[in-house]
């Protein structure tokens, strides 16, 4: 019979006899955990991406200063993507004698592809209740214009009025309350209007030299969008660029990336737990198959025959268990999704099949890495064991087996982390943890065992048992410790991550910006805030200057012709400010912040912009500010936490350098939704001040954070389940030994409770050791991951020690006692006969 058939038969027979229960359970839980996390994370990520794409109005934009060639829309349609186009330009709109420079968006059918335009047919959204605000059904009809509140107020418009736009006339039909692609930047913060693309030509606004932005909006299945992106990238000319939500919105990019990292961490924790469970379960498997292999060897099976048999056996087992795990994972995430639909307002998109393939692969790699090497050692079981049961396998064999498993695990880590740095941190952390836990466990067990003569009754037997099963005990403590450590790390980071988000974007995060405040308005503005019982915000001075020289060498937009993004920065004016203190959400990453009262011409620059315009520490930048030149040297580079929505500047200088230049002021503040009419009063009282409303964006980001937090908590439940698998495998690992031990003890007259107490003592010690290891490991790993990977303000939590040790003791004790109930209840004679 060929090896494959024979191994399938053996597998079938072992399966039927329940020999594979522990291994199967460990593997199924592990794979279903990984698949659940995978499927769920995949769906949540796409949902979050789609939701955040509402801020862009599409999944992807192709932007150009020239009309876009047909090929872009053609290719997108060929890929099954929805397309719509948009043309943006600034022009005057007139109502009688009043003229207003307005940003006009001319749109085609389908706009926006993500999110909705919200309208109200009142003259001011301040008086429109939420019930009167409705989502637009389509786009403006030809001949119609939709305008925003600023235009309504400044041009004193009401619906039905006719305005001049270029050389044509359009009728105001709607007031725009919210647009999905409302810009938060300070470039386009003027009044806005939307018209039908069919009217654009009639306006005659597009002339040679007009500054127009042509945009192609694209949306659809993520892989098709990615395909389009890959196709379009090499086609882009200098005048064209692509923008996804991550390119456009740093604050959303940061939130999304962190949550993705966390979800991969959760999946990684399941991998660690699965590895621990499999390593424990396979130990039991090997021990139970020693006799069988010895019999087969005595019956003429060659080592080669056993080798192939077990390789096929484990591949088949891995495929079946991983397959079941994937199906369960899919079912579990379906339930989870169903359960979450009430909580998450977004309809989750259908997951792709990649997580199933990953689950299958992870299951196979784990099983073949951790189970196969020790099992393959079975082929060298001395056949003499059929005559002498005391002959077995040396521990050196099985220890060497785990090395391959560790190597496999490391590769999985790096792959699953999707981040080399994160993967390496975790691999190093876990390998060091295994080495330290193993060494320390061995030492502690020896020390504790030495104390057994001083200990009383149950503790003495418990300690003696641990000592007798030293290898098993160390393995159990290490595996349980690792499992618990993974859970603790995840808990620590999860709390920190969610806290950090909530702190960076609290419910009262600034939701309005005021720009263009003049020096003489500072005082009246303060008074306005005080009168209306609003907290007066801090005012930031702002001087606008164009970068003209780097290290004395003149720069022009042409120098950056290969980078549209950089070119735009050089063309437009920079906002410069002065400050003596570093803002709380800023961090100096290179150089040092200046001393208070410095007289030197120093300059601090944000790291992203420094990279874009290619400057570094020590470079001298010269700005043209209202005709005069201002130069300063870069003495530090800052990293800005963009998630906070506070006022931040790319360029900051010490006080005393810019005060003589013409400055305006900028601020941000929070207005509760119930007080929104104060903003309208402010607009009326200070007509020159521009008010930028970011409440919609903030609301969306906050909602997203809320959803991610919930998702993270749910995903954590699955990791916890994998933790139980480790516990089960750990207890089952010594089950056979215990049944035998119980039989002997009871034959010698021990009462059940005496045995039970001795085992309880053993489990408590084992659990305590695991808890101790886990707490130490979790504190260290949590710090490293929090600080260096997720960039959180990691707070050391002393409670982790108490919690870790308590969970270890209680968890192992309960699971141990429950797991050994059957060992206590089997009749001793039956067991002793069976052992022969």
């Amino acid at each position, binding site marked *: *019979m*060929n090896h494959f058939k*024979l191994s399938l*038969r053996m597998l079938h*027979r*072992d399966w*039927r*006899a329940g*020999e594979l229960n522990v291994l199967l359970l460990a593997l199924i839980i592990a794979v279903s955990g990984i698949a659940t996390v995978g499927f769920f994370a995949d769906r949540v990520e796409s949902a979050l991406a789609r939701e955040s794409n509402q801020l862009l109005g599409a999944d992807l934009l192709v932007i150009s200063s020239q009309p876009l060639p047909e090929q872009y829309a053609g290719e997108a349609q060929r890929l099954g993507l929805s397309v719509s186009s948009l043309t943006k330009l600034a022009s005057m709109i007139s109502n009688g004698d009043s003229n207003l420079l307005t940003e006009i968006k001319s749109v085609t059918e389908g706009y926006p592809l993500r999110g909705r335009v919200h309208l109200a047919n009142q003259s001011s959204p301040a008086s429109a209740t939420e019930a009167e605000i409705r989502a637009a059904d389509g786009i403006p009809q030809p001949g119609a214009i939709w305008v925003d509140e600023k235009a309504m107020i400044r041009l004193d418009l009401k619906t039905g009025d006719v305005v001049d736009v270029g050389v044509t006339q359009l009728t105001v039909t709607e007031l725009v309350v919210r647009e999905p692609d409302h810009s938060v930047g300070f470039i386009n913060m003027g009044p806005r209007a939307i018209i039908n693309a069919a009217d654009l030509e009639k306006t005659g606004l597009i002339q040679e030299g007009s500054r127009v932005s042509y945009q192609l909006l694209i949306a659809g299945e993520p892989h098709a969008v990615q395909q389009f992106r890959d196709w379009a990238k090499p086609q882009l000319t200098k005048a064209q660029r692509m923008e996804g939500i991550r390119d456009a919105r740093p604050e959303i990019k940061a939130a999304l990336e962190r949550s993705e990292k966390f979800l991969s961490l959760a999946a990684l924790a399941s991998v660690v737990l699965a590895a621990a469970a499999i390593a424990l379960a396979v130990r039991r498997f090997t021990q139970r198959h020693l*006799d*069988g292999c*010895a*019999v*087969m*060897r*005595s*019956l*003429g*099976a*060659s*080592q*080669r*025959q056993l080798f192939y048999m077990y390789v096929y056996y484990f591949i088949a087992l891995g495929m079946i268990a991983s397959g079941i795990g994937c199906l369960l994972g899919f079912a579990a995430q379906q339930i989870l999704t169903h359960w979450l639909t009430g909580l998450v307002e977004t309809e989750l998109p259908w997951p792709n099949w990649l997580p199933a393939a990953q689950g299958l692969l992870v299951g196979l790699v784990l099983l073949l890495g951790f189970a196969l090497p020790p099992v393959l050692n079975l082929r060298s079981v*001395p*056949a*003499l064991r*059929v*005559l*002498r*049961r005391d002959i077995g396998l040396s521990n050196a064999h099985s220890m060497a087996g785990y090395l391959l498993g560790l190597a496999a695990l490391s590769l999985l880590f790096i792959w699953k982390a999707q981040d080399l740095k994160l993967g390496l941190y975790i691999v190093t952390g876990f390998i060091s943890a295994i080495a330290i836990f193993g060494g320390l466990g061995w030492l502690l067990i020896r020390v504790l065992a030495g104390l057994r003569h001083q200990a009383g009754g149950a503790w003495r037997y418990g300690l003696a048992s641990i000592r007798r099963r030293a290898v098993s005990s160390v393995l159990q403590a290490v595996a349980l410790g690792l499992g618990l450590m993974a859970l603790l790390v995840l808990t620590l980071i999860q709390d920190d991550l969610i806290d950090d988000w909530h702190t960076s974007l609290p419910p009262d995060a600034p939701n309005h910006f005021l720009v263009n405040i003049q020096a003489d308005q500072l005082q009246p503005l303060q008074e306005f805030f005080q009168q209306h019982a609003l907290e007066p915000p801090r005012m930031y001075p702002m001087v606008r200057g164009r970068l003209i020289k780097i290290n004395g060498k003149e720069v022009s937009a042409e120098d950056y012709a290969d980078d549209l993004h950089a070119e735009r920065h050089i063309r437009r004016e920079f906002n410069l400010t002065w400050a003596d203190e570093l803002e709380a959400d800023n961090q100096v990453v290179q150089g040092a912040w200046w001393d208070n009262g410095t007289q030197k011409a120093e300059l601090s620059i944000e790291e992203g912009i420094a990279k874009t315009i290619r400057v570094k520490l020590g470079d001298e930048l010269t700005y043209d500010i209202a005709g005069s030149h201002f130069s300063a040297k870069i003495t530090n580079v800052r990293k800005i936490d963009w998630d906070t929505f506070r006022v931040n500047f790319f360029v900051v200088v010490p006080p005393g350098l810019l005060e003589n230049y013409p400055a305006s002021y900028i601020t941000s503040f929070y207005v509760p939704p119930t007080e929104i009419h104060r903003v309208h009063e402010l607009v009326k009282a200070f007509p020159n001040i521009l008010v930028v409303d970011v409440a919609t964006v903030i609301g969306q980001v906050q909602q997203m954070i809320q959803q991610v937090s919930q998702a993270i908590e749910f995903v954590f439940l699955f990791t916890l389940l994998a933790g139980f698998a480790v516990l089960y495998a750990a207890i089952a690992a010594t089950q056979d030994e215990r049944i035998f031990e119980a039989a002997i003890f009871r034959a010698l007259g021990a009462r059940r409770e005496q045995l039970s107490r001795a085992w309880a003592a053993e489990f408590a010690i084992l659990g305590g050791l695991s808890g101790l290891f886990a707490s130490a490991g979790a504190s260290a790993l949590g710090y490293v991951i929090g600080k260096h990977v997720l960039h959180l303000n990691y707070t050391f939590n002393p409670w982790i020690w108490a919690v870790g040790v308590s969970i270890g003791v209680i968890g192992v004790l309960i699971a141990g006692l429950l797991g050994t109930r059957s060992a206590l209840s089997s009749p001793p004679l039956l067991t002793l*006969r*069976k052992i*022969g």
Partner: protein
Amino acid sequence: MSDNRVNQPILWTQALTKQVNTGDQQLTILQDIELQVNPGEAVAIIGASGSGKSTLLGLLAGLDLPTSGKVHLDAVDIFSLDEDSRAALRGRILGFVFQSFQLLPALTAIENVMLPLELAATGNAETTARRLLERVGLGQRLHHYPKQLSGGEQQRVAIARAFATDPKLLLADEPTGNLDSATGVQIIDLMFELNREHGTTLVLVTHDEALSRRCARQIRLADGRLVR
């Protein structure tokens, strides 16, 4: 098999010695064992507990390695072979009956009997196993697991398994050691009947004088040496 092998002993040993190191001293378990078993013979190796009987059986089957000396099994010097070739030789010509039955707990009675046939890739494993189990009186218990069978029944399965490959030589290690005396007698009767039917050579290791007398020849072992 060539004709000249027919009259050769199926098993013979040459100065077979086994020593083990027990820390600071060397313990001799077997010393210069010379024995010869001819085809069709039934030989009992008899000795008290600790006399080295099981060690000798292990060496005769090539399950263990001697310190010095040789074992020839079916004219093959088994210690000149590597472990896998010895296993293949065992599969071809040896059958075992152990004191502790050594049935695989995950396999039913019929699957335990099929196992050596499957390992040897012999066709009709199931038919042969079924026939043998019927022969040992377990036709009704083919699909029972070892734990569902009594000790006597388990040993019957083990005997059926030992004869499954139609071995030339059957090695039995205290086959009644774990059975009550009445069952023991039945088992031995069955084993001798099958031995006759199959024309198998039998080497039986026991400490039981009465049982040893069922064999045509007795070889006595004391303190690791053959006593003539």
